[in-house]
């Protein structure tokens, strides 16, 4: 494949959002007739790169070369005209549900500029039939899209993207809402397309699909190119590039005591999260930071959601400090001392209209009220200032607006929000996403220094991030606890093996301490 010239090439692409460096010096070549997969954890920079290639961010660094000529896309339309077609992750944004199949297949003809005010229905249907034939789509052209299945909608979006005869077709998480059977059909279509010479960029976090169809894999990590793998590659190699090598020695204050003798703070007994899913047994000791890792979809966040009262468990028991608790709602979980720092800071945590102080105190307003429900602002300010100081948040003052802070500092504020009050168990879900190393370190140190005899769970896909803070690392795969290791006796290969096993292989629990 490498003998042929790349159809499109991106060189040294970089992009910053405010103080956050989203992409840094990424170069990728796209060859004709090749399926190139792109993987990376959430927030690694995949979508930023896609957006740059499709012309959404004109103000990027680096160059894009199409057919040997340097171009700078100033709009998505521009990129589309240059031969880059994209099918976005959310299928229903790619089709107009209220319109029929043939109308969807000919949207470019219907809506594009320079068209006649009245359209010729017969001509459009004929054109639609041609487009449908290119990928072997066999649905009734007059059926409304709202009556179709997800995979049929996906096929329509892909067919339409192909109608422009693109040089590069970008598929962003195309299987995320497809069943296995539907995904198989998609792969057949992709195989066929590959033969026609289209270059395909396939973005997915399902590594087993990728090992099945991709010719090469590009791994993005922390905004940088972490590796390019060519066939034959193993899933484990991809995972290694994705989640990082083990550091020689991550040294974190006061870690190192053997906790096996300490009392149990949290115990999960046969906790079933999903109907028909496996039972989870897990203990976290007093003063312990447990690292919970696994790929996306391994069941980490779902477990956290049960503990935080966001969804009821199917069966099983949660014991905190020896007492059985079953949080019925988020408020109930908070009252019982279970706190949760959700993943995706911008959507789930930051309250943009609020100041740093107001963001910090949001869960514990009752603590700061007096005369009924009047807020004691000076008490809030004092507490917020303490947290700003002890966590090293860089901001003008506690009354600064959240959007004046860098990503890492915003994250510190969100973590501080949950360390403001006494917890029994605090869960941090992907707390280091889009967070610089400095802030990451500060958060880890603060968490450990203030844990006392309580418990913390840090969830992260990136092994480095978990190993940096955790006393013990537990790997989840396909909803199961796959194995655990003490941080002092880490067996990297074993961890990677657990993370990357095919779901069908995951059966029994192995413990090696």
């Amino acid at each position: 494949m490498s003998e042929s010239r790349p159809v499109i090439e991106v060189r040294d692409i970089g992009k910053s959002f405010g103080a956050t460096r989203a992409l840094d010096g990424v170069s990728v070549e796209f060859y004709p007739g090749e399926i190139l997969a792109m993987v990376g954890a959430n927030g690694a920079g995949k979508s930023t790169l896609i957006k740059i290639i499709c012309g959404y961010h004109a103000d990027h660094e680096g160059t894009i070369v199409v057919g040997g000529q340097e171009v700078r896309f100033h709009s998505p339309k521009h990129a589309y005209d240059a031969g880059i077609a994209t099918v976005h992750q959310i299928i229903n944004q790619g089709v107009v549900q209220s319109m029929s199949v043939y109308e969807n297949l000919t949207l470019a003809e219907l809506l594009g500029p320079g068209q006649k005010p009245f359209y010729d229905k017969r001509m459009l249907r004929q054109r639609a039939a041609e487009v449908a034939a290119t990928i072997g789509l066999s649905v009734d052209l007059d059926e409304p899209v709202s009556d179709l299945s997800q995979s049929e909608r996906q096929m329509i979006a892909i067919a339409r993207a192909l109608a422009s005869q693109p040089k590069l077709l970008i598929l962003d998480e195309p299987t995320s809402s497809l069943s296995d059977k539907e995904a198989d059909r998609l792969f057949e279509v992709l195989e066929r397309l590959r033969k026609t010479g289209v270059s395909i960029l396939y973005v997915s976090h399902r590594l087993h699909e990728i090992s099945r169809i991709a010719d090469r894999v590009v791994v993005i990590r922390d905004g940088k190119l972490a590796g390019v793998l060519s066939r034959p590659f193993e899933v484990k190699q991809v995972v290694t590039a994705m989640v990082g090598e083990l550091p020689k020695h991550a040294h974190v204050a006061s870690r190192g005591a053997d906790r096996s003798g300490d009392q149990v703070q949290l115990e999960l007994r046969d906790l079933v999260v999903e109907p028909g899913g496996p039972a989870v047994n897990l203990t976290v000791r007093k003063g312990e930071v447990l690292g919970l890792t696994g790929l996306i979809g391994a069941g980490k966040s779902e477990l956290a959601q049960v503990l935080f009262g966001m969804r009821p468990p199917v069966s099983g028991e949660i014991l905190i400090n020896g007492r059985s608790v079953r949080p019925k709602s988020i408020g109930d979980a908070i009252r019982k001392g279970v706190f949760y720092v959700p993943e995706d800071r911008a959507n789930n945590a930051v309250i943009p209209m609020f100041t740093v102080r107001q963001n910090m105190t949001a869960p514990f307003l009752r603590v700061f009220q007096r005369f009924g429900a009047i807020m004691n602002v000076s008490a809030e300010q004092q507490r917020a200032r303490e947290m700003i100081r002890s966590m090293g948040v860089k901001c003008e003052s506690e009354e600064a607006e959240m959007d004046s802070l860098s990503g890492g500092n915003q994250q510190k504020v969100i973590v501080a929000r949950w360390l403001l009050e006494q917890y029994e168990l605090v869960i941090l879900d992907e707390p280091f996403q889009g967070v610089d190393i400095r802030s990451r370190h500060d958060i880890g140190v603060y968490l450990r220094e203030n844990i006392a005899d309580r418990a913390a769970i840090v969830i992260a896909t990136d092994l480095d991030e978990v190993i940096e803070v955790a006393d013990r690392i537990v790997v989840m795969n396909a909803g199961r606890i796959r194995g655990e290791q003490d941080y002092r006796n880490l067996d990297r290969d074993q961890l990677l093996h657990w993370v990357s096993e095919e779901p069908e292989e995951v059966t029994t629990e192995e413990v090696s301490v």
Partner: protein
Amino acid sequence: MSDQPRVQPEVAEDGVSRRSTGERFKRFAIRYGFLIVMAILMIVFGMVNPVFWNPANLFSILLGATVYGILALGVTFPLVIDGLDLSIGSVAALSVMISAYLMVVLEVNGFVTILIALFLGAFIGFINGVLIVRVKIPDLLATLGMMFLVQGLQLIPSGGRSIGRGAVLSGGVTARGQFADYFLFLGQGRIFGIVPTAVMIMIIVAILVFVTLSLTRWGRVFYAIGSNSEAARLVGAKVDQYRLAAYVVSGTIAALGGIVLAARVGRGDVQSGGTLLLDSIGSALIGFAVLGVRKPNPFGTIVGAVFISMLLNGLTMMNMPYYVQDFVKGVVLVSALAFTFGLSKAKA
């Protein structure tokens, strides 16, 4: 490392840049621009016609703002949670008709009448809330539907006629009851013979709304929901209950506005709803610009309501014909919003 204070003012590396003079002026303009324009207008009106400054005229400005001012304070709640309540105007009109019907036709005691009217407002707000929160109809559509429903409902008891003392009803019966004196006092009386009661009611409502939204825990939760409802949910806020409550408050306060209006005109006028909806929502939106906060706030709302009334009063003294009133209101609203949002967008 972590015990060192690292809070430094204006650290350039964090993107918290040092402010230039131009930027400081812009901040000042965003914050106080609206109030300054208001002050200048008052001076100009006073210079053109000194009567403008008479205490009697100043009170009449306030009095002119009371009914839609009260409604605007109520609708501030749905606006804070990023919703909207279009039914407030017709709820107020219903409140007018119900008050008249209860007292004049059914000869119900005035105090009971007030309670029933307030309860009815709260109930309509509750239905709005259920439609929006449980049935998940978009707020605009749910309250628009409710607006029509209530507008029609208020005409039914009296058969579409206005109700005054001695009115002849659809059955040919003459109504024998009348408005209670203390009821009328709410709209027509003056406390100590100076401050109009209606103005007093508006001020009390304004203070209550200000305290609730700006000083209490509840207010903080309302604003959190409006800013990022998912984040609010994940810090344990009962988002649905608060959203429902916002519509109940809005409906109840709209009913109170209707009571004040009924007391002022002393009859159940079928036309009384009129421009209440647009005036009150306009006031609350002008409130976004006051102090440049870009969000619904009770102080801004009340200033917005008084500003509209003052402008109309001043322009009328300068012989502005009545039919350009709506045009003037629209110009004020659009320019206030353009000013605040336009200037502050450049900041981001």
